[in-house]
């Protein structure tokens, strides 16, 4: 088969679903074949997926890496086979790709921190729900910490891991129980933020605690519109990312030159 092979991190998250949908739509538009493989957050599976793409003989491979360093093996294998690689979302480390299209997660984290400072009046204790094994999340949280550190009267009192929505809910409940004076929670993703909002409501702290999320999928944007606890969400644009990835892949296949870095700056979504 010819065309584009895409290896995506997961298919159980709205961000990646939207990304995949946008890619499929654009591929149809441009009339190229696109095959999608899901790594299910396992780098070894991603490598296997890429190896299988190589056997199948695709023209270009688009990867949303499971891990920025570990993806090197897959990229090198593809390049060795003469197949150009484009990364989306998470950049690759230690290997050069033809182009990278992705959100600047650190900047997004900084924006979240600034928004938090703004809604809390530059003071107060905040908590974070994180997912420490994912590089893009680590960048977001680091950006958030950086921004908060600029405000001397603000303090991060608790960081807990909440990978799934259920885990995030328990983590948020327990953090609120342990630190009843928290006034803000930053969730590394929509799931974490939405779970935190539920926990705030269950604890009856709607008047005191504000929640900010990251990703900005529809469910979270709706929550920002309707739920006063959800004061804002950092919005990524997977639709743009997917479209751009396929466009770039088509250009690469045609031998055209493309930009090595195509950053997509996240937006801040607050209540209408």
């Amino acid at each position, binding site marked *: 088969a010819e065309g584009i092979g895409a290896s995506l991190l997961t298919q159980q998250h709205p961000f990646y679903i939207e990304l995949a949908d946008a890619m499929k739509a654009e591929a149809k538009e441009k009339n190229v074949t696109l095959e999608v493989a899901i790594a299910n957050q396992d780098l070894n599976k991603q490598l296997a997926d890429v190896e299988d793409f190589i056997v199948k003989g695709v023209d270009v491979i688009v990867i949303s890496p499971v891990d920025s360093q570990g993806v090197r093996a897959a990229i090198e294998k593809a390049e060795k086979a003469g197949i150009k690689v484009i990364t989306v979302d998470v950049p690759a480390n230690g290997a050069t790709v033809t182009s990278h299209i992705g959100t600047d997660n650190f900047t997004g984290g900084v924006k979240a921190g600034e928004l938090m400072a703004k809604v809390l009046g530059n003071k107060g204790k905040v908590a974070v729900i994180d997912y420490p094994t994912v590089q893009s999340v680590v960048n977001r949280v680091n950006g958030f910490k950086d921004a908060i550190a600029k405000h001397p009267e603000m303090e991060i009192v608790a960081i807990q891991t909440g990978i799934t929505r259920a885990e995030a809910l328990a983590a948020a409940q327990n953090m609120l*129980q342990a630190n009843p004076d928290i006034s803000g929670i930053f969730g590394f993703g929509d799931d974490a933020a939405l779970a935190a909002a539920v926990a705030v409501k269950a604890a009856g702290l709607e008047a005191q605690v504000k929640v900010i999320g990251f990703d900005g999928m529809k469910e979270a944007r709706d929550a920002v519109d309707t739920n006063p606890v959800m004061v804002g969400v950092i919005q990524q644009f997977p639709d743009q990312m997917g479209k751009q990835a396929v466009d770039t892949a088509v250009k690469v296949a045609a031998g055209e030159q493309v930009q090595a870095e195509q950053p997509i700056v996240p937006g801040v979504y607050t209540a209408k």
Partner: protein
Amino acid sequence: MTQQTAAQAALVRALKQYGGIFLSLVMLCIIFSFLNPRFMSVVNFMNILQQVAVIAIAAFGMTWVILLGEIDLSVGSIIAVAGMVGAQCFAFGLGFGPALAVTLVAGALMGMLNGVLTAKLLLPSFIVTVATMGIYRGLVSLPTNGAPAMIDNATWTAIGTESFLGLPIIIWVVAVLFVINQILLSKTSFGRRAYLTGGNREAAIYSGIKVDRLKIIIFMISGVMAAISGVLLSSRLFSAQTNAGMSYELDAIAAAVLGGTSLAGGVGTMVGTLIGALIIGVMNNGMNMLSVPYFYQLIVKGLVILVAVWLDVRAKQAKR
């Protein structure tokens, strides 16, 4: 007077039977109370009970299965499917009652498939449920292509968020299911048959127990319990997540085994399982309260499970 001594005797007996594991639970609670005074509060215990509900209910079902000497690894996936079935029912326009019924029937059917494959085709349940774990996890993702599905039925979401007579509904559900399972296991012939079959399948067959039917019913119980867990989980999250319940089967098994259920079959109680589930819940909650970093939580949780099971094994040996 005699009543009091009878109660005392019952307490002594309970302490003997659940001594090791009960001790572990109490010790954990004491340690956490010392480290964080907020741990010991009614609100927090409600929190713990609610957080542990999903695992506890799945563990009740798991206890039956393990009692037979079998295992059900598909429980986590059934939890996810149940939530999704509920969400799809509402998307289809059904009301709360019918949606709940359809969800529980779906749980029973998934359990039945596990049971039939194990009992009738004589496949080992471990491999059957590893396979159906994948199959059900695949199925749950089909309607929404992997995305979560919102649930906006007010009754459904009330289960996970509202209270009744001052207690969260979730806790009522756990309590009622505990009592039902406990009675079914310890007071009925059905429960006795499970114990006997788990103890020696061959002897049970020769004594006229319809082992295949029993096995299928018990896998159905496990499926229904998992489905109820799925209802609670999705109601707490206002949505059906396709990755919901991932690896909860291991927590459910850990709860049952902590509670003294023997993986070889024939031995186990619902009380033990409940205590086991509480240990897991208290541990998660306590460490969150202390802001223990995630990786250390994993380590501590593993160590506590080891110590608790060891205390229990020791207590049982001493009794002999």
